[in-house]
Protein backbone atom coordinates (compact mmCIF):
# COMPACT_ATOMS: atom_id res chain seq x y z
CA UNK A 1 0.00 0.00 0.00
CA UNK A 2 1.05 3.57 -0.51
CA UNK A 3 2.55 5.40 2.43
CA UNK A 4 2.03 8.79 0.88
CA UNK A 5 -1.38 8.91 -0.69
CA UNK A 6 -4.10 7.25 1.31
CA UNK A 7 -6.58 7.88 -1.46
CA UNK A 8 -4.82 5.83 -4.08
CA UNK A 9 -6.85 2.87 -2.96
CA UNK A 10 -10.01 4.62 -4.11
CA UNK A 11 -8.86 4.05 -7.64
CA UNK A 12 -8.79 0.31 -7.06
CA UNK A 13 -6.26 -2.28 -8.02
CA UNK A 14 -4.68 -2.88 -4.65
CA UNK A 15 -4.95 -5.83 -2.36
CA UNK A 16 -7.21 -4.27 0.25
CA UNK A 17 -9.71 -6.50 1.97
CA UNK A 18 -12.14 -7.04 4.81
CA UNK A 19 -10.80 -8.41 8.05
CA UNK A 20 -13.62 -10.91 8.17
CA UNK A 21 -15.47 -10.60 4.89
CA UNK A 22 -19.08 -10.35 3.88
CA UNK A 23 -19.21 -14.02 2.96
CA UNK A 24 -21.54 -14.01 -0.02
CA UNK A 25 -19.58 -13.09 -3.11
CA UNK A 26 -19.75 -15.44 -6.06
CA UNK A 27 -21.06 -18.19 -3.80
CA UNK A 28 -23.20 -19.77 -6.47
CA UNK A 29 -21.23 -19.05 -9.60
CA UNK A 30 -21.49 -21.89 -12.07
CA UNK A 31 -24.67 -23.35 -10.57
CA UNK A 32 -27.39 -24.24 -13.08
CA UNK A 33 -30.32 -21.87 -12.44
CA UNK A 34 -32.86 -23.64 -14.71
CA UNK A 35 -35.96 -24.85 -12.89
CA UNK A 36 -36.10 -28.65 -12.84
CA UNK A 37 -38.87 -30.15 -14.98
CA UNK A 38 -42.18 -30.69 -13.26
CA UNK A 39 -41.44 -28.57 -10.21
CA UNK A 40 -44.28 -26.42 -8.87
CA UNK A 41 -42.66 -23.00 -9.28
CA UNK A 42 -45.05 -21.07 -7.06
CA UNK A 43 -44.47 -23.56 -4.29
CA UNK A 44 -40.71 -23.35 -4.87
CA UNK A 45 -40.83 -19.57 -4.54
CA UNK A 46 -42.86 -19.83 -1.33
CA UNK A 47 -40.42 -22.37 0.04
CA UNK A 48 -37.43 -20.16 -0.74
CA UNK A 49 -39.19 -17.29 1.02
CA UNK A 50 -39.75 -19.46 4.09
CA UNK A 51 -36.09 -20.43 4.42
CA UNK A 52 -34.91 -17.00 3.28
CA UNK A 53 -37.14 -15.10 5.71
CA UNK A 54 -35.99 -17.31 8.60
CA UNK A 55 -32.42 -16.27 7.87
CA UNK A 56 -33.19 -12.61 7.12
CA UNK A 57 -35.24 -11.97 10.23
CA UNK A 58 -32.93 -13.88 12.56
CA UNK A 59 -29.97 -12.02 11.06
CA UNK A 60 -31.75 -8.73 11.77
CA UNK A 61 -32.18 -9.82 15.40
CA UNK A 62 -28.57 -10.98 15.80
CA UNK A 63 -27.22 -7.74 14.33
CA UNK A 64 -28.93 -5.89 17.20
CA UNK A 65 -26.08 -7.23 19.37
CA UNK A 66 -23.50 -5.33 17.36
CA UNK A 67 -21.54 -3.15 19.86
CA UNK A 68 -23.57 -4.64 22.73
CA UNK A 69 -21.98 -8.08 23.21
CA UNK A 70 -20.41 -9.23 26.51
CA UNK A 71 -16.91 -9.11 25.00
CA UNK A 72 -15.28 -8.01 21.75
CA UNK A 73 -14.70 -11.56 20.57
CA UNK A 74 -18.42 -12.18 20.89
CA UNK A 75 -19.28 -8.97 19.03
CA UNK A 76 -17.25 -10.37 16.16
CA UNK A 77 -18.74 -13.86 16.41
CA UNK A 78 -22.37 -12.72 16.49
CA UNK A 79 -21.78 -10.32 13.60
CA UNK A 80 -20.21 -13.20 11.69
CA UNK A 81 -23.25 -15.40 12.24
CA UNK A 82 -25.59 -12.55 11.29
CA UNK A 83 -23.58 -12.06 8.09
CA UNK A 84 -23.70 -15.75 7.22
CA UNK A 85 -27.47 -15.78 7.64
CA UNK A 86 -27.86 -12.56 5.68
CA UNK A 87 -25.87 -14.19 2.88
CA UNK A 88 -28.16 -17.24 2.95
CA UNK A 89 -31.21 -14.96 2.94
CA UNK A 90 -29.95 -13.09 -0.10
CA UNK A 91 -29.40 -16.25 -2.11
CA UNK A 92 -32.81 -17.65 -1.14
CA UNK A 93 -34.71 -14.42 -1.82
CA UNK A 94 -32.92 -14.13 -5.14
CA UNK A 95 -34.07 -17.66 -6.04
CA UNK A 96 -37.65 -16.83 -5.02
CA UNK A 97 -37.37 -13.65 -7.07
CA UNK A 98 -36.44 -15.63 -10.18
CA UNK A 99 -39.92 -17.14 -10.07
CA UNK A 100 -41.72 -14.02 -8.91
CA UNK A 101 -39.92 -11.52 -11.14
CA UNK A 102 -38.63 -9.49 -8.19
CA UNK A 103 -35.24 -8.56 -6.77
CA UNK A 104 -33.97 -9.56 -3.33
CA UNK A 105 -34.51 -5.99 -2.14
CA UNK A 106 -38.09 -5.81 -3.45
CA UNK A 107 -38.81 -8.97 -1.51
CA UNK A 108 -37.03 -7.86 1.67
CA UNK A 109 -38.26 -4.28 1.76
CA UNK A 110 -41.59 -4.09 -0.05
CA UNK A 111 -43.49 -7.07 1.28
CA UNK A 112 -45.91 -6.49 4.14
CA UNK A 113 -45.88 -8.43 7.37
CA UNK A 114 -48.52 -10.95 6.26
CA UNK A 115 -46.30 -11.91 3.32
CA UNK A 116 -43.29 -12.85 5.47
CA UNK A 117 -43.08 -16.58 6.01
CA UNK A 118 -40.45 -16.96 8.75
CA UNK A 119 -41.02 -19.03 11.88
CA UNK A 120 -41.76 -17.13 15.10
CA UNK A 121 -38.49 -18.31 16.66
CA UNK A 122 -36.61 -16.06 14.24
CA UNK A 123 -38.53 -12.90 15.11
CA UNK A 124 -39.09 -12.89 18.88
CA UNK A 125 -37.03 -10.54 21.04
CA UNK A 126 -34.39 -12.60 22.85
CA UNK A 127 -32.22 -9.61 23.79
CA UNK A 128 -30.33 -7.34 23.86
CA UNK A 129 -33.82 -5.81 24.11
CA UNK A 130 -36.10 -6.27 27.09
CA UNK A 131 -37.29 -9.66 25.80
CA UNK A 132 -34.12 -11.53 26.73
CA UNK A 133 -30.41 -11.51 27.39
CA UNK A 134 -27.26 -13.17 26.10
CA UNK A 135 -28.43 -16.55 27.45
CA UNK A 136 -31.78 -16.35 25.64
CA UNK A 137 -29.90 -15.33 22.49
CA UNK A 138 -27.68 -18.40 22.80
CA UNK A 139 -30.69 -20.63 23.49
CA UNK A 140 -32.35 -19.41 20.30
CA UNK A 141 -29.14 -19.82 18.32
CA UNK A 142 -28.70 -23.36 19.62
CA UNK A 143 -32.21 -24.41 18.64
CA UNK A 144 -32.26 -22.53 15.35
CA UNK A 145 -28.86 -23.67 14.11
CA UNK A 146 -29.37 -27.31 15.21
CA UNK A 147 -32.66 -27.36 13.29
CA UNK A 148 -31.39 -25.53 10.22
CA UNK A 149 -28.21 -27.63 10.07
CA UNK A 150 -30.28 -30.84 10.03
CA UNK A 151 -32.54 -29.27 7.38
CA UNK A 152 -29.69 -28.10 5.14
CA UNK A 153 -27.86 -31.41 5.34
CA UNK A 154 -30.94 -33.01 3.71
CA UNK A 155 -31.56 -30.09 1.39
CA UNK A 156 -28.24 -30.83 -0.32
CA UNK A 157 -30.13 -33.59 -2.11
CA UNK A 158 -32.84 -31.22 -3.40
CA UNK A 159 -33.98 -31.64 -7.00
CA UNK A 160 -33.53 -27.87 -7.35
CA UNK A 161 -29.81 -27.37 -8.07
CA UNK A 162 -29.84 -23.85 -6.61
CA UNK A 163 -31.35 -24.96 -3.30
CA UNK A 164 -28.88 -27.85 -3.21
CA UNK A 165 -25.95 -25.45 -3.74
CA UNK A 166 -27.23 -22.99 -1.12
CA UNK A 167 -27.52 -25.87 1.34
CA UNK A 168 -24.03 -27.11 0.55
CA UNK A 169 -22.54 -23.69 1.23
CA UNK A 170 -24.70 -23.02 4.29
CA UNK A 171 -23.86 -26.31 5.92
CA UNK A 172 -20.35 -25.30 7.00
CA UNK A 173 -21.64 -22.00 8.32
CA UNK A 174 -24.43 -23.61 10.30
CA UNK A 175 -22.08 -26.21 11.75
CA UNK A 176 -20.02 -23.33 13.14
CA UNK A 177 -23.12 -21.55 14.45
CA UNK A 178 -24.29 -24.68 16.24
CA UNK A 179 -20.85 -25.31 17.67
CA UNK A 180 -20.61 -21.72 18.91
CA UNK A 181 -24.03 -21.93 20.56
CA UNK A 182 -23.29 -25.34 22.07
CA UNK A 183 -20.02 -24.12 23.59
CA UNK A 184 -21.74 -21.14 25.19
CA UNK A 185 -24.64 -23.27 26.40
CA UNK A 186 -22.16 -25.51 28.21
CA UNK A 187 -20.15 -22.58 29.55
CA UNK A 188 -23.22 -20.79 30.86
CA UNK A 189 -24.91 -23.93 32.15
CA UNK A 190 -21.77 -24.90 34.03
CA UNK A 191 -20.25 -21.48 34.88
CA UNK A 192 -21.88 -19.74 37.85
CA UNK A 193 -25.22 -20.02 39.64
CA UNK A 194 -26.37 -16.89 37.88
CA UNK A 195 -25.33 -18.06 34.42
CA UNK A 196 -26.98 -21.44 35.03
CA UNK A 197 -30.21 -19.77 36.09
CA UNK A 198 -30.15 -17.43 33.10
CA UNK A 199 -29.35 -20.19 30.60
CA UNK A 200 -32.21 -22.31 31.94
CA UNK A 201 -34.50 -19.27 31.70
CA UNK A 202 -33.28 -18.67 28.15
CA UNK A 203 -34.29 -22.20 27.18
CA UNK A 204 -37.71 -21.70 28.77
CA UNK A 205 -38.05 -18.46 26.79
CA UNK A 206 -37.54 -20.10 23.39
CA UNK A 207 -39.01 -23.56 23.97
CA UNK A 208 -42.65 -22.71 23.17
CA UNK A 209 -41.46 -21.79 19.64
CA UNK A 210 -39.70 -25.10 18.97
CA UNK A 211 -42.74 -27.09 17.91
CA UNK A 212 -43.48 -24.80 14.96
CA UNK A 213 -40.10 -25.70 13.44
CA UNK A 214 -41.22 -29.26 12.80
CA UNK A 215 -44.75 -28.66 11.52
CA UNK A 216 -45.11 -29.64 7.86
CA UNK A 217 -46.61 -26.85 5.77
CA UNK A 218 -48.72 -27.63 2.67
CA UNK A 219 -46.05 -25.92 0.52
CA UNK A 220 -43.44 -28.37 1.78
CA UNK A 221 -45.80 -31.27 1.19
CA UNK A 222 -46.28 -30.14 -2.44
CA UNK A 223 -42.52 -30.07 -3.08
CA UNK A 224 -41.56 -33.69 -2.68
CA UNK A 225 -37.95 -34.19 -3.73
CA UNK A 226 -37.31 -30.43 -3.67
CA UNK A 227 -38.15 -29.44 -0.09
CA UNK A 228 -37.31 -31.15 3.18
CA UNK A 229 -40.21 -32.28 5.35
CA UNK A 230 -39.34 -30.69 8.72
CA UNK A 231 -41.26 -33.39 10.60
CA UNK A 232 -38.52 -35.78 9.51
CA UNK A 233 -35.90 -33.74 11.42
CA UNK A 234 -37.41 -33.94 14.88
CA UNK A 235 -35.63 -36.93 16.34
CA UNK A 236 -32.21 -35.88 15.06
CA UNK A 237 -32.57 -32.35 16.42
CA UNK A 238 -33.97 -33.60 19.73
CA UNK A 239 -30.93 -35.84 20.06
CA UNK A 240 -28.51 -32.98 19.46
CA UNK A 241 -30.26 -30.71 21.95
CA UNK A 242 -30.43 -33.49 24.51
CA UNK A 243 -26.67 -34.06 24.24
CA UNK A 244 -25.83 -30.36 24.62
CA UNK A 245 -28.22 -29.80 27.53
CA UNK A 246 -26.92 -32.83 29.31
CA UNK A 247 -23.28 -31.70 28.91
CA UNK A 248 -24.35 -28.29 30.24
CA UNK A 249 -26.21 -29.71 33.25
CA UNK A 250 -29.42 -28.07 32.06
CA UNK A 251 -32.96 -29.42 32.00
CA UNK A 252 -34.95 -29.75 28.82
CA UNK A 253 -38.03 -27.52 29.32
CA UNK A 254 -41.49 -29.07 29.32
CA UNK A 255 -42.97 -29.29 25.84
CA UNK A 256 -45.16 -26.22 25.99
CA UNK A 257 -46.30 -25.08 22.56
CA UNK A 258 -47.17 -21.56 21.55
CA UNK A 259 -50.77 -21.77 20.28
CA UNK A 260 -51.46 -21.13 16.62
CA UNK A 261 -53.71 -18.25 15.60
CA UNK A 262 -56.88 -19.60 14.01
CA UNK A 263 -54.73 -22.56 12.99
CA UNK A 264 -52.00 -20.39 11.44
CA UNK A 265 -48.41 -19.40 12.33
CA UNK A 266 -45.28 -17.89 10.79
CA UNK A 267 -45.20 -20.03 7.66
CA UNK A 268 -48.71 -18.70 6.87
CA UNK A 269 -47.62 -15.10 7.39
CA UNK A 270 -49.24 -14.79 10.81
CA UNK A 271 -46.67 -13.36 13.21
CA UNK A 272 -46.22 -12.07 16.74
CA UNK A 273 -46.71 -8.41 17.64
CA UNK A 274 -42.99 -7.63 17.59
CA UNK A 275 -42.75 -8.42 13.89
CA UNK A 276 -44.42 -5.17 12.80
CA UNK A 277 -41.88 -3.09 14.70
CA UNK A 278 -38.97 -5.14 13.36
CA UNK A 279 -40.16 -4.61 9.77
CA UNK A 280 -40.96 -0.94 10.36
CA UNK A 281 -37.35 -0.36 11.35
CA UNK A 282 -35.86 -2.57 8.65
CA UNK A 283 -37.97 -1.26 5.77
CA UNK A 284 -38.50 2.38 6.69
CA UNK A 285 -35.65 4.02 4.77
CA UNK A 286 -36.04 1.91 1.64
CA UNK A 287 -39.77 2.72 1.50
CA UNK A 288 -39.24 6.41 2.28
CA UNK A 289 -37.26 7.05 -0.88
CA UNK A 290 -39.04 5.35 -3.76
CA UNK A 291 -36.90 5.23 -6.87
CA UNK A 292 -33.65 5.69 -4.97
CA UNK A 293 -30.64 3.56 -5.85
CA UNK A 294 -28.35 2.09 -3.21
Amino acid at each position, binding site marked *: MSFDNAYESLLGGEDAHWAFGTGFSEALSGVDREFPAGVDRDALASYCLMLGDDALIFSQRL*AEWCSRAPELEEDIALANIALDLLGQARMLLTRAGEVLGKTEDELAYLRDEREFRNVHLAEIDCGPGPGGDFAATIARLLVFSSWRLALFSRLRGSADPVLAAIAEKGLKELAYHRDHAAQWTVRLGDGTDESHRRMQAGLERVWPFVDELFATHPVEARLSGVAVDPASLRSEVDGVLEAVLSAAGLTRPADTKAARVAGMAGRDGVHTEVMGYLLAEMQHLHRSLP*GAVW
Partner: protein
Amino acid sequence: MADDLELRFERTVQAEARIEPRDWMPDGYRKTLIRQIAQHAHSEIIGMQPEGNWISRAPSLRRKAILLAKVQDEAGHGLYLYSATETLGADREDLTTKLIEGRQKYSSIFNYPTLTFADVGVIGWLVDGAAICNQVPLCRTSYGPYARAMIRICKEESFHQRQGYELLMTMMRGTQQQRDMVQDSVNRWWWPALMMFGPPDAESTNTEQSMAWRIKRDTNDELRQKFVNMSVPQAEALGVTFPDPELKWNEERGQYDFGSPDWDEFWQVVKGGGVCNEQRVAHRRKAHEDGAWVREAAAAHAAKHAPSKEGAA
Protein backbone atom coordinates in the same frame (compact mmCIF):
# COMPACT_ATOMS: atom_id res chain seq x y z
CA MET B 1 24.14 0.40 32.95
CA ALA B 2 20.90 2.32 32.57
CA ASP B 3 22.74 4.76 30.37
CA ASP B 4 23.84 1.91 28.09
CA LEU B 5 20.28 0.73 27.77
CA GLU B 6 19.02 4.19 27.04
CA LEU B 7 21.74 4.71 24.46
CA ARG B 8 20.91 1.46 22.74
CA PHE B 9 17.20 2.42 22.71
CA GLU B 10 18.00 5.84 21.24
CA ARG B 11 20.18 4.29 18.55
CA THR B 12 17.54 1.73 17.61
CA VAL B 13 14.93 4.45 17.22
CA GLN B 14 17.26 6.77 15.29
CA ALA B 15 18.17 3.93 12.94
CA GLU B 16 14.44 3.44 12.15
CA ALA B 17 14.60 -0.10 13.57
CA ARG B 18 11.82 -1.53 15.73
CA ILE B 19 11.54 -1.65 19.50
CA GLU B 20 10.06 -5.02 20.50
CA PRO B 21 8.12 -5.91 23.69
CA ARG B 22 11.11 -7.42 25.51
CA ASP B 23 13.49 -4.58 24.67
CA TRP B 24 14.29 -2.02 27.32
CA MET B 25 12.39 1.24 26.83
CA PRO B 26 12.04 4.45 28.83
CA ASP B 27 8.98 4.66 31.09
CA GLY B 28 7.79 7.76 29.30
CA TYR B 29 7.90 5.96 25.96
CA ARG B 30 5.92 3.03 27.38
CA LYS B 31 3.30 5.29 28.99
CA THR B 32 2.91 7.46 25.92
CA LEU B 33 2.46 4.42 23.72
CA ILE B 34 -0.09 2.80 26.01
CA ARG B 35 -2.04 6.05 26.11
CA GLN B 36 -1.90 6.52 22.34
CA ILE B 37 -2.69 2.90 21.39
CA ALA B 38 -5.45 2.62 24.00
CA GLN B 39 -7.00 5.83 22.73
CA HIS B 40 -6.89 4.38 19.24
CA ALA B 41 -8.43 1.07 20.42
CA HIS B 42 -11.18 2.93 22.28
CA SER B 43 -11.86 4.93 19.10
CA GLU B 44 -12.38 1.75 17.11
CA ILE B 45 -14.78 0.36 19.71
CA ILE B 46 -16.75 3.58 20.25
CA GLY B 47 -16.65 4.06 16.47
CA MET B 48 -18.81 0.96 16.08
CA GLN B 49 -21.78 2.91 17.43
CA PRO B 50 -22.35 5.76 14.97
CA GLU B 51 -22.29 3.42 11.99
CA GLY B 52 -23.91 0.56 13.88
CA ASN B 53 -26.79 3.01 14.25
CA TRP B 54 -27.74 2.29 10.61
CA ILE B 55 -27.34 -1.51 10.36
CA SER B 56 -30.97 -2.27 11.18
CA ARG B 57 -32.19 0.35 8.68
CA ALA B 58 -29.72 -0.14 5.81
CA PRO B 59 -31.75 0.41 2.62
CA SER B 60 -30.54 -2.66 0.69
CA LEU B 61 -29.38 -6.09 1.75
CA ARG B 62 -26.02 -5.56 0.06
CA ARG B 63 -25.46 -2.31 1.99
CA LYS B 64 -26.57 -4.02 5.19
CA ALA B 65 -23.97 -6.76 4.69
CA ILE B 66 -21.22 -4.26 3.86
CA LEU B 67 -22.04 -2.11 6.89
CA LEU B 68 -22.24 -5.05 9.28
CA ALA B 69 -18.91 -6.38 7.97
CA LYS B 70 -17.35 -2.96 8.42
CA VAL B 71 -18.52 -2.54 11.99
CA GLN B 72 -17.32 -6.06 12.69
CA ASP B 73 -13.90 -5.09 11.31
CA GLU B 74 -13.80 -2.20 13.77
CA ALA B 75 -14.28 -4.62 16.65
CA GLY B 76 -11.39 -6.60 15.18
CA HIS B 77 -9.22 -3.48 15.01
CA GLY B 78 -10.01 -2.74 18.63
CA LEU B 79 -8.89 -6.25 19.51
CA TYR B 80 -5.55 -5.99 17.65
CA LEU B 81 -4.84 -2.69 19.36
CA TYR B 82 -5.79 -3.80 22.87
CA SER B 83 -3.49 -6.77 22.25
CA ALA B 84 -0.69 -4.38 21.30
CA THR B 85 -1.15 -2.52 24.61
CA GLU B 86 -0.97 -5.85 26.43
CA THR B 87 2.55 -6.35 25.03
CA LEU B 88 3.42 -3.17 26.96
CA GLY B 89 2.00 -4.53 30.20
CA ALA B 90 -1.45 -2.95 30.01
CA ASP B 91 -4.66 -4.89 30.66
CA ARG B 92 -7.78 -4.76 28.45
CA GLU B 93 -10.19 -4.84 31.36
CA ASP B 94 -8.35 -1.98 33.05
CA LEU B 95 -8.32 0.09 29.85
CA THR B 96 -12.03 -0.54 29.32
CA THR B 97 -12.70 0.63 32.87
CA LYS B 98 -10.74 3.80 32.16
CA LEU B 99 -12.79 4.38 29.01
CA ILE B 100 -16.18 3.95 30.66
CA GLU B 101 -15.14 6.07 33.62
CA GLY B 102 -14.10 8.83 31.25
CA ARG B 103 -10.42 8.67 32.30
CA GLN B 104 -9.20 7.86 28.80
CA LYS B 105 -10.30 9.51 25.58
CA TYR B 106 -11.33 8.33 22.17
CA SER B 107 -11.49 10.22 18.89
CA SER B 108 -13.93 13.10 19.27
CA ILE B 109 -15.35 12.57 15.80
CA PHE B 110 -17.53 9.76 17.16
CA ASN B 111 -19.36 12.21 19.37
CA TYR B 112 -21.07 13.55 16.26
CA PRO B 113 -24.42 11.97 15.34
CA THR B 114 -25.14 9.87 12.22
CA LEU B 115 -28.42 11.34 10.96
CA THR B 116 -28.91 9.86 7.50
CA PHE B 117 -27.65 6.86 5.56
CA ALA B 118 -25.41 9.19 3.56
CA ASP B 119 -23.44 9.61 6.79
CA VAL B 120 -22.37 5.98 6.43
CA GLY B 121 -20.76 6.84 3.09
CA VAL B 122 -19.29 10.14 4.23
CA ILE B 123 -17.79 8.55 7.33
CA GLY B 124 -16.15 5.99 5.06
CA TRP B 125 -14.84 8.63 2.68
CA LEU B 126 -13.84 11.52 4.96
CA VAL B 127 -13.58 10.12 8.48
CA ASP B 128 -11.86 6.88 7.49
CA GLY B 129 -9.87 8.91 4.96
CA ALA B 130 -8.63 11.28 7.67
CA ALA B 131 -7.94 8.33 9.95
CA ILE B 132 -5.87 6.68 7.20
CA CYS B 133 -3.88 9.89 6.71
CA ASN B 134 -3.17 9.88 10.43
CA GLN B 135 -2.43 6.17 10.55
CA VAL B 136 -0.43 5.37 7.43
CA PRO B 137 2.70 7.02 8.92
CA LEU B 138 2.21 4.84 12.01
CA CYS B 139 2.92 1.74 9.91
CA ARG B 140 6.54 2.93 10.32
CA THR B 141 6.26 3.79 14.00
CA SER B 142 9.11 2.64 16.25
CA TYR B 143 7.16 0.15 18.36
CA GLY B 144 6.96 -3.17 16.44
CA PRO B 145 3.58 -4.59 17.55
CA TYR B 146 1.89 -1.22 16.98
CA ALA B 147 3.45 -0.80 13.54
CA ARG B 148 2.40 -4.29 12.47
CA ALA B 149 -1.16 -3.79 13.76
CA MET B 150 -1.32 -0.52 11.84
CA ILE B 151 -0.30 -2.10 8.55
CA ARG B 152 -3.20 -4.49 8.76
CA ILE B 153 -5.63 -1.86 9.99
CA CYS B 154 -4.67 0.60 7.25
CA LYS B 155 -5.28 -1.98 4.54
CA GLU B 156 -8.72 -2.74 5.92
CA GLU B 157 -9.52 0.93 6.48
CA SER B 158 -8.65 1.77 2.92
CA PHE B 159 -11.11 -0.88 1.79
CA HIS B 160 -13.77 0.66 4.04
CA GLN B 161 -12.99 4.04 2.59
CA ARG B 162 -13.45 2.74 -0.92
CA GLN B 163 -16.79 1.19 0.06
CA GLY B 164 -17.94 4.51 1.55
CA TYR B 165 -16.96 6.46 -1.52
CA GLU B 166 -18.66 3.92 -3.77
CA LEU B 167 -21.90 4.31 -1.75
CA LEU B 168 -21.74 8.09 -2.26
CA MET B 169 -21.07 7.69 -5.99
CA THR B 170 -24.12 5.44 -6.24
CA MET B 171 -26.28 7.88 -4.29
CA MET B 172 -25.13 10.80 -6.46
CA ARG B 173 -26.35 8.88 -9.51
CA GLY B 174 -29.74 8.36 -7.84
CA THR B 175 -32.55 10.83 -7.12
CA GLN B 176 -32.25 14.54 -6.29
CA GLN B 177 -33.29 13.70 -2.76
CA GLN B 178 -30.30 11.36 -2.46
CA ARG B 179 -27.89 13.96 -3.89
CA ASP B 180 -29.19 16.51 -1.37
CA MET B 181 -28.71 13.95 1.36
CA VAL B 182 -25.05 13.44 0.38
CA GLN B 183 -24.32 17.19 0.23
CA ASP B 184 -25.99 17.75 3.61
CA SER B 185 -23.89 14.98 5.10
CA VAL B 186 -20.65 16.41 3.63
CA ASN B 187 -21.59 19.81 5.08
CA ARG B 188 -21.93 18.29 8.53
CA TRP B 189 -18.78 16.11 8.47
CA TRP B 190 -16.18 18.23 6.63
CA TRP B 191 -15.12 20.43 9.55
CA PRO B 192 -15.18 17.66 12.15
CA ALA B 193 -13.04 15.55 9.75
CA LEU B 194 -10.44 18.35 9.59
CA MET B 195 -10.46 18.51 13.38
CA MET B 196 -9.43 14.83 13.50
CA PHE B 197 -5.81 15.88 12.91
CA GLY B 198 -5.80 17.63 16.27
CA PRO B 199 -5.19 21.24 17.23
CA PRO B 200 -2.81 23.45 15.22
CA ASP B 201 0.88 22.63 15.74
CA ALA B 202 1.41 25.75 17.82
CA GLU B 203 -1.06 24.43 20.42
CA SER B 204 -0.25 20.71 20.29
CA THR B 205 1.48 19.61 23.50
CA ASN B 206 2.51 16.06 22.66
CA THR B 207 4.02 16.48 19.24
CA GLU B 208 7.72 17.19 19.86
CA GLN B 209 8.67 14.28 22.13
CA SER B 210 6.51 11.85 20.15
CA MET B 211 8.24 12.83 16.92
CA ALA B 212 11.66 12.30 18.48
CA TRP B 213 10.54 8.81 19.59
CA ARG B 214 9.19 8.10 16.11
CA ILE B 215 5.77 7.42 17.65
CA LYS B 216 4.41 10.26 15.61
CA ARG B 217 5.80 11.00 12.12
CA ASP B 218 4.15 14.17 10.82
CA THR B 219 2.71 17.24 12.51
CA ASN B 220 -1.03 17.85 12.77
CA ASP B 221 -0.95 20.71 10.30
CA GLU B 222 1.11 18.78 7.74
CA LEU B 223 -1.35 15.90 7.78
CA ARG B 224 -4.35 18.23 7.63
CA GLN B 225 -2.94 19.96 4.55
CA LYS B 226 -2.27 16.61 2.89
CA PHE B 227 -5.84 15.52 3.60
CA VAL B 228 -7.33 18.68 2.08
CA ASN B 229 -5.13 18.34 -1.02
CA MET B 230 -6.30 14.78 -1.56
CA SER B 231 -9.98 15.37 -0.76
CA VAL B 232 -10.76 18.28 -3.08
CA PRO B 233 -10.39 16.33 -6.36
CA GLN B 234 -12.41 13.49 -4.81
CA ALA B 235 -15.23 15.93 -3.99
CA GLU B 236 -15.15 17.26 -7.55
CA ALA B 237 -15.37 13.74 -8.98
CA LEU B 238 -18.31 13.09 -6.69
CA GLY B 239 -20.10 16.35 -7.50
CA VAL B 240 -20.22 17.82 -3.99
CA THR B 241 -18.69 20.94 -2.46
CA PHE B 242 -17.01 21.52 0.87
CA PRO B 243 -18.58 24.19 3.10
CA ASP B 244 -15.49 26.43 3.14
CA PRO B 245 -15.54 29.77 1.22
CA GLU B 246 -11.77 30.11 1.74
CA LEU B 247 -10.97 26.83 0.03
CA LYS B 248 -9.01 27.52 -3.17
CA TRP B 249 -5.91 26.35 -5.02
CA ASN B 250 -2.78 28.37 -4.22
CA GLU B 251 -0.54 28.27 -7.29
CA GLU B 252 2.45 29.62 -5.40
CA ARG B 253 2.32 27.04 -2.60
CA GLY B 254 1.19 24.23 -4.88
CA GLN B 255 -1.43 23.40 -2.24
CA TYR B 256 -4.99 24.31 -1.32
CA ASP B 257 -5.60 27.19 1.04
CA PHE B 258 -8.44 26.51 3.44
CA GLY B 259 -10.26 28.05 6.38
CA SER B 260 -9.79 27.27 10.03
CA PRO B 261 -12.14 24.84 11.78
CA ASP B 262 -14.10 26.14 14.76
CA TRP B 263 -11.64 25.23 17.50
CA ASP B 264 -14.08 26.32 20.20
CA GLU B 265 -16.46 23.62 19.01
CA PHE B 266 -13.54 21.16 18.91
CA TRP B 267 -12.59 21.79 22.55
CA GLN B 268 -16.22 21.76 23.63
CA VAL B 269 -16.68 18.28 22.12
CA VAL B 270 -13.33 17.03 23.46
CA LYS B 271 -14.36 18.17 26.94
CA GLY B 272 -17.61 16.19 26.82
CA GLY B 273 -20.06 18.68 25.38
CA GLY B 274 -20.70 16.96 22.02
CA VAL B 275 -24.16 15.79 21.01
CA CYS B 276 -23.27 12.14 21.67
CA ASN B 277 -20.47 12.04 24.29
CA GLU B 278 -22.65 10.79 27.12
CA GLN B 279 -24.62 8.44 24.91
CA ARG B 280 -21.51 6.76 23.47
CA VAL B 281 -19.88 6.12 26.83
CA ALA B 282 -23.16 5.05 28.44
CA HIS B 283 -23.74 2.58 25.59
CA ARG B 284 -20.28 1.08 26.04
CA ARG B 285 -20.69 0.99 29.80
CA LYS B 286 -24.04 -0.79 29.56
CA ALA B 287 -22.67 -3.43 27.16
CA HIS B 288 -19.71 -4.01 29.46
CA GLU B 289 -21.77 -4.18 32.65
CA ASP B 290 -24.56 -6.27 31.12
CA GLY B 291 -21.92 -8.72 29.93
CA ALA B 292 -20.15 -9.06 33.30
CA TRP B 293 -22.07 -12.18 34.31
CA VAL B 294 -21.18 -13.82 30.97
CA ARG B 295 -17.46 -13.12 31.38
CA GLU B 296 -17.59 -14.38 34.98
CA ALA B 297 -19.33 -17.56 33.85
CA ALA B 298 -16.77 -18.19 31.13
CA ALA B 299 -13.93 -17.69 33.62
CA ALA B 300 -15.60 -19.92 36.21
CA HIS B 301 -16.17 -22.66 33.65
CA ALA B 302 -12.57 -22.47 32.43
CA ALA B 303 -11.26 -22.58 36.00
CA LYS B 304 -13.36 -25.64 36.86
CA HIS B 305 -12.01 -27.53 33.89
CA ALA B 306 -8.45 -26.26 33.82
CA PRO B 307 -6.81 -29.36 35.30
CA SER B 308 -8.83 -31.76 33.13
CA LYS B 309 -7.59 -32.61 29.66
CA GLU B 310 -11.13 -32.83 28.34
CA GLY B 311 -12.31 -29.74 30.16
CA ALA B 312 -12.49 -27.27 27.33
CA ALA B 313 -16.07 -27.39 26.17
